[in-house]
């Protein structure tokens, strides 16, 4: 299988604060990578570096055969934009556009960014809303929806742009257990369709059952990575064991 994301020696500091210290990993096409670890370990920062919401301090990132940054030097603006369009992101707080209806949240990026026709955009949107079980909600506004529904809209919005990789930044952390299940089953469906995904999560059983590979991070470094059954069910490192103590009891 082909690598779709390659990260080598990634470093990220905020001032003197080193958030990510020399991290390397890759994601192959159709794979689901889970990133777990305590809060503040740098999990989300990795996704933010991939999506260009943060500038890396050093390191190399390649996405879909294009170079985003090589040894800390970024590619041309045009290349960066192409790379950005190949990634979709789902946020912890959904970040839907409150002034747009559910339908418009999905169609607007298609119209403005991909310059699709209105008919085409609505066709895509209705297909995705149906898939997300939201057909009846097309004309509702985000404030009228439950957290789980809002998160499904944001997944539809990301999928509409047909990204090669979908990134999830703690997609269920703002949801109650019932709604969490709702979102996890959506991600599971996407995994069955061989969507390439990186999921930052605190849902250990989800990471164990669904991911092809899991990374456990602490203090800005990868403590342990590999098959989810090894990393989560029988971790080798002391730090991993400690973190998963409550889960593996």
């Amino acid at each position, binding site marked *: 299988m082909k690598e779709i994301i390659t990260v080598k020696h990634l470093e990220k500091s905020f001032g003197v604060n080193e958030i990510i210290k020399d991290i390397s990993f890759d994601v192959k096409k159709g794979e689901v990578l889970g990133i777990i670890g305590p809060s503040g370990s740098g999990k989300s920062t990795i996704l933010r570096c991939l999506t260009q919401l943060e500038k890396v301090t050093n390191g190399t990132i390649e996405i879909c055969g294009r170079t985003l940054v090589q040894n800390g030097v970024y590619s041309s603006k045009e290349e960066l934009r192409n790379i950005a369009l190949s990634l979709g992101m789902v946020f912890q707080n959904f*970040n839907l556009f409150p*002034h747009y209806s559910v339908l418009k949240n999905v169609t*607007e*990026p298609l119209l*403005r960014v991909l310059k699709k026709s209105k008919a085409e955009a609505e066709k895509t949107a209705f297909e995705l809303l149906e898939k997300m079980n939201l057909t009846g909600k097309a004309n509702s506004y985000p404030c009228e929806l439950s957290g789980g529904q809002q998160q499904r809209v944001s997944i539809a919005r990301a999928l509409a*742009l047909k990204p090669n990789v979908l990134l999830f930044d703690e997609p269920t952390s703002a949801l109650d257990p019932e709604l969490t299940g709702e979102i996890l089953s959506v991600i599971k469906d996407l995994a069955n369709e061989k969507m390439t995904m990186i999921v930052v999560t605190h849902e250990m059983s989800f990471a164990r059952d669904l991911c092809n590979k899991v990374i456990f991070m602490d203090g800005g470094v990868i403590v342990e990575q590999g098959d989810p059954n090894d990393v989560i069910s029988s971790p080798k490192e002391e730090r991993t064991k400690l973190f998963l103590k409550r889960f593996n009891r």
Partner: protein
Amino acid sequence: MPTMIKSMMEGTVVSIQIFFLTLIFAIPLGLILTSGRMSKNIVLRTITKWFLLIIRGTPLMLQLICVYFIPGMLSAAWFGKSVSLNRFTAAVVALAINYAAYFAETYRGGIEGIPLGQYEASKVLGYTKAQTFFHIIIPQVIKRILPAMANEVITLVKDTALVQIIGVIELMYVAKTQSSALFSTVPLFVAGIFYFVMNGIVSSCFNYIEKKLAYYK
């Protein structure tokens, strides 16, 4: 009595002209000042900050006097010939600058109140900075600043009365002259009613827009 009402109506027309012209210039000028105030360029930011402080920190009446008299004084000193704005233009210029300063700070408050996530989501979706600003940020800012803007616009209706200090004949000036001429307080009372009605219209306009935008939270 009919002549009193007639001349007060004429004064009202002047007041309304000043009101609308001030809004037409102050609303976009405020946006320009906000962009200076929020600029990454520290020089521009500092200059704008001080400009806003001075405009908001000195009396509007003083600013009216400055705008009307200073150009004449300077041109007399430099070219030996006094050139100045006409009274009406000076009034609109001074009011527009003053209100733009207040609007600028209101806009800034509105823009800073938009969650960072809105910018991040737009960026990840591939929106350009301009698209993000005009399609995602501005519509939400308008909704947020509406109550504060209503306050300021209502104040503007009443502040138009200040332009009489540079000799513009508007509603309040007419009311005062009529009051002395007729030796009666009735014209002043009528002027009060006129202002009250104008502000009634202004606030129902704002209520209407607020209701229109109440479809989302």
